[in-house]
Every structure is written in structure tokens, then in C-alpha cells.
């Protein structure tokens, strides 16, 4: 998802882009692709641990010394099997950290600098799964719910300043993370389509955006279903 956003950002313009990833060789592959797509852009890569607070702090500090950031997009995550989270606390803990704690820590580290500069847009990826806990994926949902509440708080903190905070809530999207789910259930949105919506939302500085848009309606209904109905649903 992040990669498709980056492809849109480098398309036909010259940008300064720093990619942060866990696996250096995978980030290098993405960077090489972006350099071909936009030879005039400056593409840097940074390898970082995503769970260690010191590593996150030093990674973010190093990035902001290159200059003020216009846009920060935090996309990382993993989709654990709910049943494994229930069976194995370690898997459960990893899922909460990678999808919830880690994005929040990155955002908080950037927020400090962006607040000082009084400019920039910070975009976080929540999920429709964070809107109401469901038995099929509530651990992942809880982590994404944390991102949602965090983003709300950050929006409150930066209200009336030059910093914008955008929360994106994608529905099921075709990415490597969901490849094993393809063909089951409803058709997933393409990563390109979702990326275009993310880029547009960042441009506008929209507070909350569901992609595709239909999920705003679906989740409003799901959130408001009374328990006696909701509990009968197998979702």
C-alpha cells in the first residue's frame, strides 16, 4: 500500500522520499523501482527496528535532520490469524505491538518535530477492523482501534495548527498481507485504488477517510447494531 502511494508521489514530479523498513533488501528493491520511475527524485532508505523505542526515536531524528517533512505515512502492519492469537500469547503480543504500538510510537516521534515546525501532514493507517471488535479478528482490530483513538487525540492536539493528521481506514485490500484471503468472501479493493484515495486524502488533509468509501456506511451500520443482533452474526 505504502509502495503504491510512493509510486503516485514520484510520478511526474521530483520528490525527496525516505523509505523506512524492517528488511533492508526489500526496501532496496522498492527504492530501485522508484528511482527508475522518477530519476529526478531523491530516494533514501533507512532500515530500522520497528518495536524498539530507542531505534524508532533515532530513526525519526535522523530523518528530520534532512529537513522539514511534508508528509509522513505510516503503513506497516501484519495480519495475524485470530485463532493463533487466542492460542499463543506471543503471537497475540506481536500482533498488538506491530499493528498498534509501533505505528503510534513512530507517529509520536514525528509529531514532536512536526509540532515544532508547525507544518506537515501525518497519515496513519487504521482499519475498518478497528471500528468494532468482532470475533473473527479482534486482536488485530484492537491494535487498529488503538491507532484510531491515538489519531483522534493527535487531531485534537494539533487542531488549529499547521499540522494535519489523517486517519485512513481501508477495507479488505489486495496486498501481500491479505494474499491468503483472496478468493474468499467479497472482492477486495486493489492496492492501487486504495493508494490513490490515500494520496488524495493526504492532499486534502481529511481527518478520517474510509477506502473504498462504501465502508463508511457499512461500518456505521455495524457499529450501531444492537448486541442481540450483532452476537448472532458470524463476522
Amino acid at each position, binding site marked *: 500500500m505504502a509502495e503504491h502511494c510512493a509510486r503516485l508521489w514520484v510520478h511526474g514530479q521530483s520528490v525527496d522520499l525516505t523509505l523506512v523498513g524492517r528488511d533492508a533488501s526489500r526496501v532496496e*528493491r522498492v527504492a*530501485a523501482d522508484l528511482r*527508475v*520511475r522518477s530519476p529526478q527524485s531523491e530516494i533514501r532508505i533507512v532500515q530500522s527496528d520497528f518495536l524498539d523505542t530507542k531505534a524508532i526515536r533515532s530513526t525519526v531524528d535522523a530523518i528530520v535532520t534532512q529537513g522539514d517533512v511534508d508528509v509522513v505515512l505510516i503503513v506497516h502492519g501484519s495480519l495475524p490469524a485470530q485463532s493463533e492469537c487466542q492460542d499463543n500469547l506471543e503471537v497475540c503480543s506481536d500482533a498488538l505491538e506491530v499493528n498498534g504500538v509501533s505505528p503510534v510510537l513512530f507517529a509520536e516521534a514525528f509529531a514532536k518535530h512536526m509540532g515544532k515546525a508547525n507544518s506537515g501532514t501525518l497519515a496513519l493507517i487504521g482499519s475498518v477492523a478497528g471500528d468494532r471488535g468482532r470475533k473473527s479478528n479482534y486482536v488485530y482490530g484492537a491494535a487498529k482501534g488503538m491507532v484510531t483513538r491515538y489519531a483522534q487525540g493527535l487531531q485534537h492536539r494539533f487542531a488549529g495548527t499547521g499540522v494535519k493528521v489523517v486517519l485512513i481506514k481501508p477495507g479488505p485490500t489486495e496486498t501481500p498481507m491479505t*494474499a491468503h484471503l*483472496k478468493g474468499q468472501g467479497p472482492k477486495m479493493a486493489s492496492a492501487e485504488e486504495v493508494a490513490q484515495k490515500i494520496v488524495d486524502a493526504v492532499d486534502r488533509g481529511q481527518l478520517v477517510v474510509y477506502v473504498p468509501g462504501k465502508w463508511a456506511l457499512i461500518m456505521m451500520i455495524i457499529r450501531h447494531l444492537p448486541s442481540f443482533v450483532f452476537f448472532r452474526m458470524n463476522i
Partner: protein
Amino acid sequence: MRPVSSWGRLSASAHDVVSFNDPGQIARLVASHPGGIAHGNGRSYGDVCLNPEGVLWHTIGLDHFIAFDQSNGRLVCEAGVLLRDIQRLVIPYGWILPVTPGTQLVTVGGAIANDVHGKNHHVLGSFGDHVQRIRLLRTDGQSIECGPQEQADWFAATVGGLGLTGIIVNAEIQLRRVAGPWLDTETVPYANLDEFFTLADDSEAAWQHTVSWIDCISAGGRGLFMRGNPTDVDDRPEPKGRKRTMPVVPPVSLVNPLSLRAFNMAYFNLKKWQAGRAVSHYESFFYPLDNLLEWNRMYGPKGFFQYQSVVPREVGQEATQAMLAEIARSGEGSFLAVLKTFGDRKPVGMLSFPQPGVTLALDFPNKGDQTKKLFERLDAIVRDTGGRIYLAKDARMPRELFEAGYPHLNEFIKYRDPGISSGLSRRLMGS
């Protein structure tokens, strides 16, 4: 397991689909999901990209560019990159893919594995003519770098090799200089095959791109000859490129004898009216159908067959006439009927389709036995003239016709990867 169809929508068998998203992970995934076939964007029509009840290795996630040298037009990219993305990247720099098929929604890996051709075969050959290097990963973990000079035997087996020699991981392509996205085009109506062959002969020297649509229900074989050359006009706005989607699969084929007669008459006369010179954008000239997404749905739930043959030039006119007569006799018809001459060039791959001669491509809604009977009569003409059928489009040809049409088959077999199998390879090669 989930149902997967190829472009012809003739079947929807269950497949165990595995996605390649990282070249570094392919070997591991192949080891855990053996016996598959690489599947790009699924635009081949028959079973070359299918493996019913078996494993499919989706390569569309291998969509990264690796390097592009603007000074010499060398592009290196992963096998799942779409030709569309290459064109959009390189044309603004004054480069273009030398050869592209009638859709740009195919992957580089698929274009190599089927050694696809375009409207300029008489000038620039097939896609494989412009591939400089292929990185092939065998299912035993061996990695092979091959090109027209290095390991040329592996290269000749892999170009047009239907994905059966290994998994194409990345490739280097030599692009061609171009002034811009526009072509100077001309549409010339012709009344019969005599006129077609005269036009084809007269156009080959001066026009880089030639193709024709033939009205296969007309008795004489009337049609529209289209030819084009790149041009350097640059004062035009890019077309909007509005995409439409065939929204549903209609319960019956929308292509039937009645609609076809109306279609063909309207199309011929409309285009005849507009005939003459024009300036066209490359997307509308090369890929007219790409603006109607999922157009293959219009043939209804049973899908459709493509029948594309090539026969030697000496007998081309009689053979084409005979095939048109068989089609007329059968009462079946084809809307997307394309007639084109191939240049006198040596094919790159052992199983490459293009050979010097005339190629006729036809599509027919699947009506079961009735359609297959017609194909048997067309097969007889192809067999008698020493022609062959295009494997990227085939879903039904008998094995003996395949063996007769592809004389280098025995040589090719030596390069097959024993860990790879497709619907087509089992049907035509027995494994």
C-alpha cells in the same frame, strides 16, 4: 483452492494460488508449493496459463523496475511488470517497446513465454527479438542467465517456452527510439482477399505497422486494412483514456449470427466512411480493446475460443479463402477477425508462433460440439498447408497437429523443467 479462468473463460477450475511478491522468496514458495505454472495477468485465452486442480504461481506482484538507462534504452524489470507500465514510463523519455501485442495488459514474463507479436512483425519480429537477457529460476533452485549470445540454447527454449523451462524472474529489454506517443495512420477498405494481399505487399516497405480486420461473413472477404507509422507531432493533448467495463456476464453470448451480421455491416461501413489518413494515439491504435475492460464477458457464461493460425505465404490466399468458406458454411461467425502477414524472419524461440506467412485470428462463442466441429475443418486446412496454431490462444487443438506444427518440439523437451506443469503441457506434451 479457488476458481481461476483464463481470458477465454472456458473453464473455472480450482487452483491453489500462490503469490510471488518478492524475488527472494520464489525458491522457498516453489519448494513448498511444487508442480505449478507461472501465471501473469491471465490474458492468454486457453490453458497455457492454467493448471486445473494444481498450483498457480501468480507473478503479478513481481512488478518492480530494476534499471532503465535513458541513454541506450535498456530496461531491466521483474517479470510481473505490465507492458502498460513500461510504455507509460519510457515514452516520455523517447523510447517505446519495439513489439507489443493487441493488449498492453500483459506481463513481461507472459510476453516472453508466449513470444508475442504485434502489427510490426515484418519490420521488428516478435517480442523475444528484443529481449537481451532473461533470469530463469529452475524449480531445483538453479538460476540461469540466458540471452541471444549467452546460453543461447536456454534462451531459445525459454522465449516462447510457455513458462515450462523455469520461472522467468526478470528480464532486460532493448527499447526502440520513438518521437512521441502519436502515429500517422491510414485505414483502407478492401473488397476481397486479392486486394488485401496487394495492400499487404505494397505496405510492408513503407509502413511499420500493418493489420486488418476482416468481415468473415462476407463472401469475398472484405475488410479494413490499417497501417501506421510513428510520427513526431507533439502539439496534441493526450487522450483522456476513459475506461468502460463490461459490467456483467450476460446469460447468453451477445455475439451471435444475428448481432454479428449487424455489427460487421455497421463496423465496415462506418469505418469505410471514416477511411483515410489520421493521427492516432498509440494506445488507441495498438490496444483498441483495452478501453473496454473485461470485454471477454460479452460471450456469455460458456466463454469463447480464439482460433489463430499461420499458414505459409505461398498458399496463404487459398488457405484463408478456404477457412472463410468453412466459417460461412458453418453459420458461425467471428467479430474480432484479424488478418495479417508476417515478415520473412527466423523465429527466436523453439516454440515461437510467428513464421513467414499469413495469420488469421478468429473468435467464436463456445457452442460445444458445433464449434469444435468447425475447428476440426479449420485444422485440416492448417495441417495440409504446413501451418500451425498459436499456443497462447489454444484450448483444444489435437496433439498430432501441435507436433506437426512445431518441428522443434523434441529439442524443446530437453529444456523443460520437470517441476513445472500446465493444463496445456499435459494436454499437448503428456506431462
